[in-house]
């Protein structure tokens, strides 16, 4: 009986120590999401079906498919595959398109401020009823400003 008792005692002791340690070393899940998010191109273009890069990162930690991000292309998929070996791949090929930048045709812009509302990364400057323009190196090419524009004066082009 003494032998079983000793082993049980030992196990309980170790579990107690681990419980104390557990509280002090909070699991770094949040840090992991940030690490995954930093691998994504941060275009916030929602082409992956999630409303932005951070939500997609959270979904990835939850086990989402790793090849939903066209702007990131194959390089990002490789990185994510390394960090998340168990996550599935949704489709065989990934439709990657060359990086594009938006440009507002200033002749037809009516200053309606809708595209500025839509731009996830504040890459368009302007005020209501004033001329709007796209900051070329701030724009990530997510094309979210195209649908809301009433006069369709925004064009995508190579940087």
């Amino acid at each position: 009986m003494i032998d079983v008792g000793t082993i049980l005692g030992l196990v309980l002791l170790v579990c107690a120590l681990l419980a104390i340690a557990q509280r002090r070393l909070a699991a770094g899940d949040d840090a992991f999401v940030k690490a995954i998010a930093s691998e994504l191109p941060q275009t916030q273009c929602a082409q992956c079906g999630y409303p932005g890069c951070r939500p997609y990162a959270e979904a990835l930690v939850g086990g989402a498919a790793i090849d939903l991000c066209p702007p990131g292309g194959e390089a990002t998929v490789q990185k994510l595959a390394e960090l998340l070996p168990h996550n599935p791949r949704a489709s065989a090929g990934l439709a990657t398109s060359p990086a594009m930048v938006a440009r507002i045709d200033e002749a037809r812009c009516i200053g309606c401020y809708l595209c500025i509302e839509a731009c996830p990364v504040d890459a368009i400057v302007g005020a209501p009823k004033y001329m709007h323009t796209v900051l070329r190196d701030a724009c990530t090419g997510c094309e979210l400003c195209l649908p809301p524009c009433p006069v369709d004066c925004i064009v995508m082009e190579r940087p």
Partner: protein
Amino acid sequence: MIARYLRPMQSRWCVEPGDVVRCGALLGSGRVRTHAAFTGTVASIDDERLELDVAGTEQIPSLDPLDVHSSRATVLERIEHAGIVGLGGGGFPTHLKLAEALRRGVDKLVINAVECEPGVHCDAALCEQFEPEIVQGIEALQHLLDAEVHITQGAATCPSRQAWQTHTLNADTPAGAERQLCRSIFGITLAADERPVHHGIVVVNVGTAHAIARALQGWPLISRMVTVAGENRWLAIGTPISSLLEGSSFRVGGRLSGQTVGGDAPIGKTTNAVEPAPASRNAQPCINCAACDVICPEDLPVAQLARLPRGNVEAAQRLAADRCIECGLCTPVCPSHIDVLTILRQHRHDVRHATTQRQAAAAAGNRFEAREQRRAVQSALREARRQERLQRRQRNG
């Protein structure tokens, strides 16, 4: 003859196919301006290049002359309007470089006439034929930056004044590179991510100084001195190389750091030399003799980089591939005839692309976070006002 112009980064064509343009007319603007060096009609335009069907080759200035001592802003604006870029080979827009120099404050201006690469001696010819304009250009720059002028020369003798300090260096590659100049003249060794401007130095090629003088006389950058197979000629920018030399592929740039280009490539703003392409030799396996390690002026681990397959960007970054100044010394010393420069150039491009990509992503991420917080604050404010209106209505109601 069909003249061709390549679209610089972040700039757009501002003419349509079919337009008739006079010599010196603006073809494209944005970060860098491009001007037509010939009179003719625009044949075709696409994302990469513009083709001009040449009618007349006679060149006329298209801007009005400007006094050398006019205000800094006007001189900088003229440099931008003339489309001046670094003619030494870098091709960085000069107005951006000078603007940054003014912003950070610069006390040393280096006019670089050290031609350290075999096969390139266009600066030497420039110094002989256009001495007055070069002096005028240097004076304009000195007035603009009010910095102490240093002239660096190798084989060529650059025009000089008493007030300017002249340094004659032995011109073996890569003595003329700006990192090497900072070390040899001022004894400053630049860190990996530093440029001369961080130490109050700005290095300007003598060709760029000459182009600035001509810009003040009313000429946009539409022609430059080029060493064509050893012979120096004053050529219009856009001239197809196939009209100058026989053959289907040519080497643009010096014999060491030059690149092989196809038959239809044009003379660009940064083309300092053109030669028929060298015969390519079949490479043998690398035996890690490290001759390239020894000769590399930036003492990079060249042998390890040369063996590294493309795609492994972390390793390329760890081996500091982005510090390569593409001087091309490693290729001739390789006993197995491996084109080491091209491999290092690819690694350098990959690492730089990855870094800018990562920085852009981080910046976009921060802007997104800031926007989310701003919208949260705005909606909270709107909500508070709505509650307040509700209560006021209930009280009055």
